[in-house]
């Protein structure tokens, strides 16, 4: 979308894709693209300006649409190829794979260095080097024997929800799987290593708690300017790595809780990150009906509980893993709930404006 940077927010919902823009009288929602259709992911390629919207049609499956000119928010969309698994083998190790070889949802989209990456549910990773015209399954990951131990987190099967492309190195990509831990490639996807050391899965039997292959990472983000620093909101706890994921360190509990799904990381300050706490695994609603944000500005040594303008009572909004984002100014944040609420902050999360309470359930927000 044209306009000053950080004045637009793409909002992918259960009933369409909204291009929310800052106008003279405030944030304006406008009419959606794909009205009535579920949008699961959205990404804008920073190099080409192309926008990609992933749909998860209830009857007809996953579809991917591309707009080369996202300039006015309702630019021309054309359908491109969507990631699809090859035929499931009828012989060999995977012939009785319990995981269906059908893409149910595009759960992560990332673009960088001329390559488009799609993380899916089930947990297939796909890449496209031609702007979405064709896709290839990253078999080196899909056929890892460790995949047999991955578990669904909130879904029947494991899924790839986070993809971080190293801005300095096209061959270095880090992904996170619920539940399958953090994996990295340094050769463009030819080989992979699990890099989840330090994460602990409290829900597992004691002897498996530190198994990197079953960690339930809810969302992982990389600091754009310091790509050695990664933050993760896990099912149990918040983690940070300062060595590109070789070692993860659990962050002490902010108030009110460290349970949640989303995380946003300041694009230039690797010590600043935001989270949206819910009560607990057992109660996935705000504590005491009060919606807040937690923010750290010192790498997790301490947190502030902030959010003037957010509902203070009788509020039952949940912000899902892709529905919190920060713009490249580091000050503009957008947050969308599964209850159709959209809030924007322009001061780093201290004060929020409610843009709408009437949207469909929100899956993804991206500040542009």
């Amino acid at each position, binding site marked *: 979308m044209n306009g000053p940077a950080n004045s637009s927010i793409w909002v992918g919902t259960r009933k369409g894709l909204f291009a929310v823009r800052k106008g003279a009288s405030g944030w304006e929602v406008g009419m959606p693209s794909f009205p009535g259709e579920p949008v699961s992911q959205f990404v804008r390629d920073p190099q080409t300006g192309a926008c990609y919207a992933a749909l998860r*049609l209830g009857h*007809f499956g996953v579809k991917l649409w591309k707009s080369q000119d996202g300039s006015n928010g309702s630019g021309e969309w054309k359908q491109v190829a969507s990631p699809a698994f090859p035929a499931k083998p009828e012989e060999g190790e995977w012939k009785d794979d319990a995981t269906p*070889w059908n893409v149910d949802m595009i759960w992560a989209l990332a673009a960088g260095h001329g390559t488009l990456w799609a993380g899916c549910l089930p947990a297939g990773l796909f890449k496209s080097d031609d702007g979405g015209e064709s896709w290839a399954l990253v078999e080196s990951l899909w056929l890892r024997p460790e995949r047999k131990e991955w578990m669904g987190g909130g879904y029947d099967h494991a899924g790839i929800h986070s993809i971080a492309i190293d801005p300095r190195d096209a061959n270095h990509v880090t992904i996170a799987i619920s539940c399958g831990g953090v994996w990295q490639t340094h050769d463009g996807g030819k080989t992979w290593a699990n890099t989840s050391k330090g994460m602990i899965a409290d829900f597992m039997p004691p002897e498996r708690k530190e198994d990197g292959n079953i960690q339930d990472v809810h969302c992982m983000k990389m600091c754009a300017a310091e790509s050695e620093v990664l933050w993760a909101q896990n099912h149990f706890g918040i983690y940070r790595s300062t060595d590109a994921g070789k070692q993860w360190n659990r962050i002490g509990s902010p108030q009110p809780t460290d349970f949640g799904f989303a995380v946003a990381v300041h694009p230039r300050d690797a010590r600043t990150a935001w989270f949206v706490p819910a009560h607990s695994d057992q109660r996935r609603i705000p504590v005491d009906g009060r919606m807040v944000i937690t923010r750290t500005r010192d790498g997790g040594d301490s947190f502030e509980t902030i959010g003037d303008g957010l509902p203070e009572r009788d509020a039952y909004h949940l912000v899902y893993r892709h529905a919190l984002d920060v713009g490249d100014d580091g000050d503009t944040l957008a947050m969308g709930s599964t209850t159709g609420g959209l809030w924007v902050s322009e001061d780093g999360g201290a004060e929020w404006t409610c843009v709408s309470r009437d949207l469909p359930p929100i899956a993804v927000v991206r500040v542009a």
Partner: protein
Amino acid sequence: MPHVEFAPALTRHVACAPQDVDAHTLREALARAFDAAPGMRNYVLDDQGCVRKHVAVFINSRMVTDRTHLDVPLERGDNVMVIQALTGG
């Protein structure tokens, strides 16, 4: 020749006119129709080439219940109708 038609719930996504096709099985009939409208294939079939869970295929008003084995023989004049199932709304 068998006749293949897609319901408006499908053709609103991908244009595909009703057509007679040179085919002897359901799989062939769908393949010929997809030749004319390649974009329709992945609206009807999943990654493994099976009829999607929330799509229903009828041959002469009888629903095809096996979504995987589509080598159902077709007779000349058989009518294949592909619709959006009411499940999955």
